[in-house]
């Protein structure tokens, strides 16, 4: 509870600074409307069916994308993290692929995937896989060998060691990777909606329309705030899971 009030205080502080900044004559209110203006616009939007449909489209795509990224990256990370040969063999390819920006892939992706939601979900997954993958691999590197040895000595097979020792022990850090990936997914989804259009609606499309039509910054920021809130909600959910599933790590780590 106290954590929540503190968090709200933090956000409130940010809003106050934004409000002051927006109200000061430093920047024209047109480009940076203060939260009071954006808030009114936002409240209006929340009653707007079309806007809500956009939001729902984005949230659904987000959930799918996060699920897919984790589903792909965690097992892959377990394999790459535990079989050095595979890791070395794929390193060149992986390091080559990672820096390729989604933006550059858009036309090719459209060609292959079409303009539907598959496009943005694929691009989001492409971007979000990396933090999970790397966090999984690094967590495995930090795995206490004695835990593995203990399991091996009691006749535990490789696969089970992977899933009942390596995975739980790296779970805290993997979950951090998933939290990172969740917001990465959101950012890419909205950006692709924003840059590629199509993609079956979504928050990004709303922002693009608001921007490219006539530069309605109040609408843009309202949409952005909603993106932030979605990100916060997803992150909070994952943090809850983290607190429940891996309570042990915070105690063994943070006891002081």
């Amino acid at each position, binding site marked *: 509870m106290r954590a929540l009030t503190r968090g709200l205080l933090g956000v409130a502080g940010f809003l106050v600074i934004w409000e002051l900044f927006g109200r000061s004559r430093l920047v024209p209110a047109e480009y940076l409307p203060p939260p009071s203006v954006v808030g009114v616009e936002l409240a209006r939007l929340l009653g707007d069916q079309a806007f809500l449909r956009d939001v729902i489209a984005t949230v659904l795509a987000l959930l799918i994308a996060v699920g897919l990224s984790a589903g792909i990256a965690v097992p892959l990370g377990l394999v790459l993290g535990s079989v050095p040969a595979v890791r070395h063999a794929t390193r060149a390819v992986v390091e080559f692929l990672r820096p390729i920006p989604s933006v550059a892939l858009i036309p090719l992706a459209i060609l292959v995937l079409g303009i539907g939601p598959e496009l943005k979900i694929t691009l989001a997954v492409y971007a979000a896989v990396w933090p999970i993958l790397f966090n999984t691999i690094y967590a495995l590197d930090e795995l206490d060998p*004695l*835990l593995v*040895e*203990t*399991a*091996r*000595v*009691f*006749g535990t097979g490789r696969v089970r060691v992977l899933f009942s020792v390596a995975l739980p022990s790296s779970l805290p850090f993997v979950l951090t990777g998933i939290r990172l990936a969740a917001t990465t997914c959101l950012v890419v989804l909205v950006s692709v909606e924003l840059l590629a259009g199509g993609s079956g609606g979504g928050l990004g499309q709303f922002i693009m329309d608001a921007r490219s039509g006539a530069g309605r910054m109040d609408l843009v920021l309202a949409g952005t705030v909603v993106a932030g809130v979605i990100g916060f909600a997803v992150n909070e959910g994952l943090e809850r899971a983290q607190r429940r599933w891996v309570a*042990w790590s915070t105690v063994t780590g943070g006891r002081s």
Partner: protein
Amino acid sequence: MTAMLSVADLGHTYQAKDGAHTAIADLSFTVGPGELVCVVGPSGCGKSTLLRTISGLVRPTRGEVTLHGNAVLGVPDDLAVVFQDYSRSLFPWLSVQKNVEFPLKRSLGRSARRARAAEALEWVGLSKAHRKYPWQLSGGMQQRVAIARALAYRPALLLMDEPFASVDAQTRFELEDLLLKVKAEHDTTVLVVTHDIDESVYLGDRILVLSGSPASVVADLPVRLPAPRDQITTRESDAFVGLRAEVARLLNVGKGSGEVRARRKADEQSAAKWAEAERAEVSRAEAEDRAASS
């Protein structure tokens, strides 16, 4: 008696960036089925390394370990280990009970597993802590969880690395008797590394005395004490006292012979030189400081 476990010409050298370190020089011994062998030897001589090679976690650089007549290449079946670093060998995300159940998953159903775990935890006096997590336990309790886990597994070969180091004297006695009882009941072969000479005599059917680093066998003493041992009467017996003195003497004498002693000598000399050099460096630095400040 055919050998259950046999260690032949075993040697192990750890490779490190700054030169290799030979932990085990040359070890050969055998252990019969149902035997309890205690291993004693100075700190850092290579006892834990020996257990690691027997359990197949480390491939020895020389020689061979055979179990039931088969060379140990991977981790053999039917083996349990209580590690010296017990606290790190417990899974922090599992409760005490789940930790004990962990190795049983492969072979037993849910309820059988729970019963075994409950039984083993009762043996080591931790029934009431079964729901706690390892970090909520004291050091000695953690060690007992590790012991319970190994016992619940009912291995054919049980390796224990200083298993009672962190428990109080009274509990230690109880655990020693527990080990003897379990061993007798299930005909388990046991190898116990211990620093407590009394314990080695009390527990062992045989005592293996190792030399200082790198380890080699100094003596392999049979313990001829009557079978149902008792903490009070056995420890008071003359045979016990005599053996205890013998082991203590061997451990001191065993601190080096021949080649090994020569090598240790060299090591010590170089170490002494390092300490000497450090000291010289310090005086120099201090002299400089003094010169600078005056």
